[in-house]
């Protein structure tokens, strides 16, 4: 069954979406969209280093994203530049350095568009194994981190005062995010990973009455977006990443239809 490239893409894409939904909820709640974007952009530097030193691609991307996220935390703690400026510098610096390095390596032939926007044809069986195993690790980690992470999202001081360890939780969360970026890069592309994290989560918000429900809905909505996006990518010969993001956007817009939202709002307001 996995011999068909389209089935492979679907299996890989759904795997990514199921993980991206719950993680994306935290990115929305913690207002980390730009942070996620910066980590995703650094993935291209990871690709360049993997090619240069002949490392496994996903491992290299994971390590670079993890290092970048740690650098962000350290730079933010020093507090000389605003977080916004630090993110802007790192996001584009890592992307540009990655692009320059890849261009300098004239001896390797790389499908750059595939890395930037995703390529369904590129999904291999080992990729699927990485995505589903990595996905299982990510979901297990999120389940384990769930309470402290949610508490720290509402108030890090409250969490710390009542015996949780918000700093440690935050570091663990960033490693999880680096892992998801490494998994998702091939499918959706460096430039659009954050969209698959955020749009399904934002869509799910309108139907969810609890954080846990929102995470589950986001995972399911993401999976639907992947299926719709890949179908249209195949039919219209469009790049897979943007097609999935457009599908997610359509679902988001549908969720904005007044009738749908009013009913949920009323339901929530009732004690």
């Amino acid at each position: 069954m996995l011999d068909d490239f389209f089935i492979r893409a679907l299996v890989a894409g759904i795997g990514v979406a199921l993980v991206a939904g719950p993680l994306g909820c935290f990115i929305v709640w913690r207002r980390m969209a730009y942070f996620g974007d910066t980590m995703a952009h650094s993935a291209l530097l990871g690709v360049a280093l993997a090619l240069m030193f002949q490392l496994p691609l996903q491992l290299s991307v994971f390590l670079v994203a993890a290092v970048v996220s740690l650098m962000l935390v350290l730079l933010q703690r020093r507090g000389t530049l605003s977080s916004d400026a630090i993110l802007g510098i790192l996001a584009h610096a890592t992307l540009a350095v990655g692009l320059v390095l890849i261009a300098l390596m004239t001896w390797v032939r790389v499908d750059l568009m595939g890395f930037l926007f995703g390529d369904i044809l590129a999904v291999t069986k080992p990729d699927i194994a990485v995505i589903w195993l990595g996905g299982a690790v990510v979901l297990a980690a999120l389940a384990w981190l769930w309470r402290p992470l949610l508490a720290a999202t509402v108030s890090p001081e409250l969490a710390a005062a009542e015996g949780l360890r918000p700093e440690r939780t935050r570091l663990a969360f960033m490693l999880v995010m680096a892992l998801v970026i490494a998994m998702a890069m091939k499918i959706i592309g460096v430039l659009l990973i954050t969209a698959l994290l955020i749009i399904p989560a934002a869509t799910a918000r309108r139907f969810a009455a609890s954080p846990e429900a929102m995470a589950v809905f986001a995972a399911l909505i993401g999976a639907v977006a992947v299926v719709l996006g890949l179908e249209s990518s195949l039919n219209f010969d469009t790049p897979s990443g943007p097609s999935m993001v457009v599908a997610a956007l359509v679902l988001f817009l549908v969720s904005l239809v007044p009738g749908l939202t009013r009913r949920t709002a009323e339901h929530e307001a009732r004690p």
Partner: protein
Amino acid sequence: MDASARRAEPLVTATGIGVMRAHRWLVRHIDLSLHAGEIVTLIGPNGAGKTTIAKLLLGIMAPDEGKLDRRAGLRVAYVPQRLAIDWTLPLSVSRLMTLTGPLSDAAMSEALAAVGLEGLGNRPVQVLSGGEFQRALLARALARKPDLLVLDEPVQGVDFSGEVALYKLIGEIRDRTGAGILLISHDLHIVMAQTDRVICVSGHVCCEGTPQSVAESPEYVRLFGRRTAETIALYRHHHDHTHLPDGTTVPAGGHTHSHDHGHKTEPTDAR
């Protein structure tokens, strides 16, 4: 150790603690202790380090000098200042209550009833009024059965009648649970009725004692100005005459926007 000795032992004792940030002492030479069943109010102008002291006692921050002793196995609960929950996070009152630890249904409804929010467990926190939200936070803290309860400006965003009711509630919580309560406030006149001891801070402890003695102390007058001190003296006088034997002195509705003391206590007078 028998129960009475344990009760006499302070919950927390700070000896000469100080915190330095960016080559500046935020607070220094702080000596204070807090016992079970006692309500202590920290008062001081903005930037006086009230929240810093609270964070030190809670163990969120470590002192850079001095010594902090917390009774072994101390259970703390915290109501932080200005807790804003983003709309993107679907959080019901009951989910807010289980934020840092699980809770039985019985304990939850008991705590909600204690703050007058019975049956509102399913309500999203975003639709609560300022006063209801603070009560929900109080219920959350209460349900943890804390030995030490720290409330940082608990009446923010609450109208005047709500403020009085909230402070009365805090007094009741102390009476019923025997917890030690640390209150942070910037308006002494409302907290005075419920407070055993006031500690006036401005980077260091300026003065300490009963609400009356602090209100009359020269250090307090210097920090807050003569007018405030006189208003408090007036309030005390007024208050002495209007306290009903059954303790029900909460003024209803009206005049809530006035900051003149004579007006505030008028409804009580009229009864």
